[in-house]
């Protein structure tokens, strides 16, 4: 297992710091060697910047990867968007000599050079490959009695030609990691459907993007889930903040707590909810906290 550096992106440190904290606590507990990545920027966001200008996308993503190369670390992402953006950019820069050359002209202006010596990982795929559900299960001290509606998020598994993580219609690896915590990953219709936030739709056409979120939330509520678990802070934001926006715009109340996998794992590893920032979400469902308290304390 190579050494890692933790890439934070934008939404985790600047909107949901609990996910950053939970990730660090889990990495520590699992004894994973992971350093900070000082001075990293926006990945940059694939839905917008990548589709605006490819050289800009490659230059900014390239710089973030170079920061990790300088530390001799693989990049660990905790966001599907950062993962997609950085892993695709890394792939293009490694494979395409002309793109590497033109990107290095830009990077040369800040005294940096992309070499192509490291890989980009996503925490879910990393934990599955390097630890596996069995080993995680052994580390669990507080098995969780929760019904989880898992949301994979599109860019963890798609486009599949680039990701190569198996089935995109019915993947199971993330479910196995959920069940390793003792929780049950429940089935629900449209489980693999998009949250509605990506591609710049949330920022430009909020109401439209919330229609898609509302559809998923109804499915999740009908399936009787205790909470939603994701591994993408943008989906996390869309489900959490989105529930407040849906209340305001459509007068509908869901009140379903939203957790990043690091936070779910953190609970199972014995950390209290407040240390994992679960109470700092916009949706704070009292019954859910009581259920956790019953289990955890």
């Amino acid at each position, binding site marked *: 297992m190579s050494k890692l550096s933790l890439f934070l992106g934008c939404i985790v440190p600047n909107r949901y710091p609990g996910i*950053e904290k939970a990730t660090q606590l889990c990495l520590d507990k699992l004894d994973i060697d992971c350093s900070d990545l000082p001075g990293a920027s926006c990945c940059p966001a694939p839905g917008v910047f990548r589709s605006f200008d490819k050289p800009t996308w490659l230059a900014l993503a390239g710089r973030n990867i170079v920061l990790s190369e300088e530390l001799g670390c693989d990049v660990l992402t905790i966001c599907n968007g950062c993962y997609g953006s950085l892993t695709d950019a890394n792939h293009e820069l490694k494979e395409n000599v002309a793109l590497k050359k033109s990107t290095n002209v830009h990077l040369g202006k800040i005294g940096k050079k992309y070499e192509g010596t490291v890989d980009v990982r996503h925490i879910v795929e990393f934990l599955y490959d390097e630890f596996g559900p069995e080993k995680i299960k052994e580390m669990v001290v507080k098995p969780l009695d929760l019904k989880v509606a898992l949301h994979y998020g599109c860019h963890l598994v798609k486009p599949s030609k680039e990701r190569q993580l198996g089935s995109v219609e019915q993947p199971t690896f993330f479910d196995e990691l959920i069940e390793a915590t003792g929780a049950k990953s429940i089935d629900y219709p449209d489980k693999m459907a998009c949250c509605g936030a990506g591609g710049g739709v949330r920022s430009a056409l909020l109401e439209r993007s919330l229609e898609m979120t509302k559809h998923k939330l109804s499915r999740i509520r009908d399936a009787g889930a205790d909470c939603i678990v994701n591994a993408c802070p943008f989906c996390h934001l869309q489900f959490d903040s989105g529930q407040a926006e849906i209340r305001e715009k459509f007068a509908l109340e869901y009140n379903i707590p939203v957790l990043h996998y690091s936070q779910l794992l953190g609970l199972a590893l014995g950390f209290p909810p407040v240390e994992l920032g679960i109470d700092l979400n916009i949706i704070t469902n009292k019954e859910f906290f009581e259920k956790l308290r019953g289990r955890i304390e």
Partner: protein
Amino acid sequence: MSKSDVLNTLQNAGLDVLTCMQCGTCSSSCPSGRYTSLNTRRIVRGTCVGRDILHDEDLWMCTTCYTCQERCPREIKIADTILAIRTIAVHEGIMLPAHRKVSQLVLKYGHAVPINDDVKEKREKLKMDPIPGTVHKYPEALADVQTLLRSCEFDKLVA
């Protein structure tokens, strides 16, 4: 840019849409199309026949979920094509105001979603440094990001 140039640009990027058989698998799989005017099949068709696709506002309703691309029986890279058409549109000055705004945030802060006071407080509650160890904390790193963005002329593109 003339209409046939759009097809040429796509083809040079390895994006061939001309094999589309208009089966509609893409549009019937599209989560956005349930709630917006986005009709993916129509976008592909329009691109094939040289309709003025750059001004089609449906371009911006795609969440890039890649479902259509995964399911297309002709293996057309539909989502990648939509993104590539967006690139051409942006370079022709066609861009939604909200996207211009997000771009300005990256130019200024190096983050598309910068920190605010409310989150600084949340970080302190979690016993974390209120300022994350990103470009927010290191002015010289932010200056590097800004140099790169200028070098790519991104500032002019989104001005």
